[in-house]
């Protein structure tokens, strides 16, 4: 929510200058409901799909929808930080695939040389998180030290990392993993209602949501996205901060790689391919501005939930596959279009 207030500070025209006639009632309404309109869209989708397919209100549908969201939510949380700084991370899906393969390869080697299962799992998890963070930090360094646009840098790492992933194991899957990893994918709490991967994704959203909304780190993230020069002049170490932000995105991609590997008890080189598009869509549906300074983790959670509910709902209602793609694409555009209408109230 801080994001909204910060961006309003930079974009809002003093009320005195605003003519009552120039602001139609619809726009004033949009302004008033604020960022919560996305929550309304989510509820509307649940109600509509629930009416068409009552099986949406079952444990199985919840598990399907929430499990699907895990990988996209974790990536989207990292992506939110990046987008709030007016950046973009196109490489997070590729990083997911690399981290999963790197950790799995290490675990396969350790198991083949008779290391203990526990030690292997710990080393593998550490390798996944670390390799993700390293790629993220590398993105951050390229962006800040060589002054390349984030789009170019992460497009480059998307391709290069994808190549490295294939080099790791000749592009083939790795299935020799310690049981702890596959148990991580299947375990759950609350009599099966809350799978561990979903719990981890929610914990990530809460922790990083608090970091973004309630800490100095979060405030600096917004400040850089709203006005980088201003942030620099007021003493924010912008370069170091951006490296950390891209590092967070990479670290979370590594975590997502771990959970995807655990879910399928197998690491796949193309895991995470095109995930960046879903992550960016989730963030933007959640109300973040692609030009920085605005966005919340709460919005991103809702954005991810909207895409996941659509994915479940469209299959439950037997919508033909091609129309599913059309529907998802249109919802992304509609969500952003409505958001533009809402925010234009402040700028016009």
């Amino acid at each position, binding site marked *: 929510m801080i994001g909204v207030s910060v961006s309003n500070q930079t974009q809002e025209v003093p009320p005195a200058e605003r003519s009552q006639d120039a602001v139609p009632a619809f726009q004033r309404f949009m302004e008033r409901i604020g960022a919560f309109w996305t929550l309304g869209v989510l509820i509307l989708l649940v109600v509509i799909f629930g009416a068409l397919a009552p099986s949406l209100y079952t444990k199985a549908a919840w598990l399907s929808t929430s499990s699907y969201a895990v990988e996209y939510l974790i990536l989207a949380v990292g992506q939110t930080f990046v987008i709030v700084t007016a950046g973009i991370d196109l490489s997070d899906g590729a990083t997911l695939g690399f981290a999963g393969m790197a950790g799995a390869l290490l675990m396969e080697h350790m198991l083949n040389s008779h290391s203990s299962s526990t030690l292997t799992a710990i080393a593998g998890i550490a390798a996944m998180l670390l390799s993700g963070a390293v790629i993220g930090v590398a993105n951050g360094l390229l962006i800040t030290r060589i002054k390349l646009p984030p789009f170019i840098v992460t497009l480059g790492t998307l391709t290069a990392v994808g190549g490295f992933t294939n080099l790791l194991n000749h592009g083939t899957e790795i299935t020799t993993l310690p049981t702890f990893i596959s148990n991580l994918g299947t375990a759950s709490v609350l009599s099966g209602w809350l799978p561990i991967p979903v719990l981890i994704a929610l914990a990530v959203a809460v922790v990083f949501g608090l970091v973004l909304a309630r800490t100095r780190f979060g405030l600096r993230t917004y400040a850089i996205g709203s006005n980088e020069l201003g942030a620099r002049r007021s003493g924010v170490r912008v370069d170091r901060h951006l490296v950390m932000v891209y590092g967070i995105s990479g670290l979370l991609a590594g975590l997502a790689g771990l959970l995807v590997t655990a*879910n399928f008890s197998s690491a796949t080189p193309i895991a995470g391919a095109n995930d960046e598009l879903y992550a960016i869509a989730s963030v933007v549906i959640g109300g973040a501005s692609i030009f920085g300074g605005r966005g919340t983790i709460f919005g991103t959670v809702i954005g991810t939930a909207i895409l996941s509910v659509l994915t479940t709902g469209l299959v439950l209602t037997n919508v033909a*596959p091609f129309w599913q793609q059309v529907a998802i694409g249109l919802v992304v555009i509609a969500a952003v279009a409505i958001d533009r209408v809402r925010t234009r109230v402040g700028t016009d």
Partner: protein
Amino acid sequence: MQFKSVTRPAVRRRALLLGVAVASALAVAACGSSSSSSSASSSPASSAASTSSTAAPASSSSGKKYTIALVPGLTVDPFYITMHAGAAAEAKALGVNLIWQGGTTFSPTTQLPVVESLLAKSPSALLIAPTDVNALKAPIQRFVSAGIPVIAVDTTINDTSLLTAAITSDNTQGGALAADAIAKLAHDKGDVAVDNVNPGISTTDARASGFINEIKKYPNMHVVATEYNGDSATTAESQVRNLMLAHPDLVGVFATNLYGAQGAGTAISAAGKTGKVFVAAYDAEPATVALLKKGAIEVLVIQQPAVEGKDAVLYAYDKLTGKSSQIPKETLVPNIVATTATASDPNITKYYYMSSFSG
């Protein structure tokens, strides 16, 4: 107001930059892949060329040494690696050189530069697994115009008149085998669904239609849905979980590739429906074989890529040595079916794909 007038041109400029960035990055990526792959195998190719140019005048009886290029759909996939092994064995037996070059992803974007750079090397024949039924037509036409015969392996192009021969696994038969195997497990009744990859791929589309047509022979069975997972196991898992919800009588899922199999297997075991909903999958890659052995999937249709590669080299050799009449225009290689019960049978395991081959 001031804010708006400042931002709009900036936004435009940024959008333009993005466009330029994408174009230039793609160009860089394309150049990178073609140059790296050509440099990787330029030494055997150039040595082959020099061998033939020096050997041709000298040898009188055996004629010149041919160089045959094999371009797979992608180089890192066990299916194509096994095809390479079959082709290499046949090439060795016939005494011809084999060049193996391709992209690391199944896409015309990575395949086209490889094909274009091969034309400059003028191989004696081109064996190719086209990654698109239309996009590869123009470059193949250039080979044919240069007098280089082209044989399609596994996948093909729409305009088959350009091809000397087309060899493929009988994907329709493979889909039908999957349907029969699921029907047997489910006692000939219930709903089934197809989890396909992407529309427009000739092989996977043929598998799906083979499956759908075969199911029609069972009066108490119906295909209730076809979904496309876009090569994502996560998407496939979500689809199969939701299909089980939407269709409580679902007894089988036909996954046309590995990621569908992983997703379907995970979905069914998460829903506790193992033994009630059966999965038939395709291709004996190490990962699918692992799924079959542990019972996450019950049926595996196995192709014979080594036979495809072997036949392609043989037909190219026949064409080059003036035995065109022996070449069948279309060859359909039959498939093998494995089940969880037969997964470790040596008569089945010999068909499993190789994950590496250096030849």
